């Protein structure tokens, strides 16, 4: 089996997770998680705090490698290739599965340099090509109209939602197959949230999205499939409309209704 994370087109299932378990020291954060995500599909991960949503996202691009307490077992395949094996180039994997964090985390650089940061790290040094890809990424993140006038000004001067879009553009510049969104609108007001959702809606056409969110309406609006996690386990998953309208598990029903879980 090839362990390279190189792209292989024409594969229906983009991401396939099987029997994934994650421990932080002796605490098990994910239990037997299995999930299959098709290409250009959007999956929402919902659940209470500490249910394993962020851990699942971080497992997908192996950011858990950075945590000395984390240990992982199971299977995680992208385009049919195993991503947890020792031969996988983690840097290449992370460029293919980009991640947006809950708070906008910009580097102390200009807007342009922030977006170009990942490109240069990936070995792209041609100024024209970098400029073109930065512009395209900012356009895809719907922030070009604002950013084009302050392209070489410090990025922290932008508003919080614009900063988050620049963070998204930084990921998009690397042309990822999968985008992992870890509650990216958690610090936004409702208007900014809706604007960011517009961007996500456009990305659904050509990227596979995994969206962890506490905002149930957002999950309902943006996703094709919804997974409900509790205590590191996927309790229920299925078509978003079905999960929201006819949940099969009482715990899902309680969560969606905002009720405390039954004993």
């Amino acid at each position, binding site marked *: *089996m090839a362990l390279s994370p190189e792209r292989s087109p024409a594969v229906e299932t983009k991401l396939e997770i*099987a*029997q994934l*378990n994650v*421990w932080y020291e002796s605490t*098990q954060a994910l239990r*037997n998680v299995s999930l299959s995500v098709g290409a250009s599909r959007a999956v929402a991960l919902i659940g209470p705090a500490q249910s394993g949503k962020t851990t699942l996202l971080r497992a997908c*691009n*192996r*950011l858990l*490698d*950075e*945590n*000395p*307490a*984390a*240990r*992982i*077992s*199971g*299977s995680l395949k992208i385009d049919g290739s*195993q991503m*947890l*094996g*020792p*031969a*996988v180039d*983690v*840097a*290449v*994997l*992370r*460029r293919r599965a*980009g*991640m947006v*964090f809950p*708070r906008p*985390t910009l*580097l*102390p*650089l200009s807007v342009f340099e922030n977006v170009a*940061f*990942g490109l240069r*790290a*990936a070995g792209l040094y041609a100024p024209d090509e970098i400029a073109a890809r930065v512009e395209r990424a900012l356009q895809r993140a719907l922030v070009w109209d604002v950013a084009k006038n302050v392209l070489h000004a410090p990025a922290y001067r932008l508003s919080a939602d614009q900063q988050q879009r620049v*963070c998204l553009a*930084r*990921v998009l510049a*690397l042309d990822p197959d999968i985008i992992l969104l870890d509650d990216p609108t958690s610090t936004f007001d409702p208007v900014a949230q809706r604007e960011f959702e517009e961007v996500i809606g456009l990305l659904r056409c050509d990227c596979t999205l995994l969206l962890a969110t506490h905002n149930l309406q957002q999950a309902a609006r943006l996703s094709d499939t919804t997974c409900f996690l509790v205590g590191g386990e996927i309790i229920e998953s299925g078509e978003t409309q079905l999960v929201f309208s006819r949940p099969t598990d009482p715990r899902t029903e309680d969560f969606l209704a905002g009720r405390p879980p039954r004993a």
Partner: protein
Amino acid sequence: MGITAFSPPSRWSAVLPTQIRGTALFAAIFAAGVILIIVAGALGAALILGWLWSGPPGQLQPPTSPISQVTMSLSPWAPLETTLLVIAIALPITAIIAGGAAVGMWDLSAGATRIRRALPSSLGWMTGIPPVVIGVVLYFVTELDRSPHVGALSAAALVILNLPNATAKFAHVGWLVPQEARDVSAALGVRSPLAFLQLVRLYASWACAAVLFTLAAQMAGETAAIVLAAASAVGNYPLAASVWFAALDPRHELGQAFACAVLIILVGVGRTLAHVCLRRQEAQAWH
């Protein structure tokens, strides 16, 4: 095919490749540092034993006219030139090796390994080598060879003995980078050594400069006294005797006082620059 079967992993079952690479890199550099320090210690011990076998300098009869046997330069600038030369050799070498070790530690900080847990105590122990030990080793290095090679030997001794300290300082510089920035860098697929350089440049460049100035001042302080004494070394007598003779020589007093003042100023300037850089770093972090 998963990397392990479904069962709670044992302590080492899921050590990931990036951690292994980081561990290997650091272990190699750290082991090299330990070996070099052991060699330096052995060299120092051999020199002490050799000196004891050949008899202490007190057994030598002072010449009737030591001034006539002065062989080295009496210029007050000579100690300064020698000190600067020694620092110019030792500082870049120390910075490069210690910087490399710090990158290894940065990589290692993402790995749950025994080396990582043993690291703070072992590095703390090694940085606990007091400057007086460095001074003693330098003294015996100077005793061993009064030829022009003495500068290179002193520089080598400085590199070896300052490595743990320099490594710890550079590692501290790495820890000034916020965790969020490390996460972002990792998530963008920036490889570890490059991430260290890029993020330290962005978040801790002033701290890096402060480390370099502190090291330079420290090395100057460690070297200056010995070099000052060596500059007034007399004939074939051991350094201690030479210093004694030179101290008795009224012609040296003014020159030595001047050289002392210049070297003290040199150390002070290094420390002041380091302090200024740290203040800038604090301002940068606050911003």
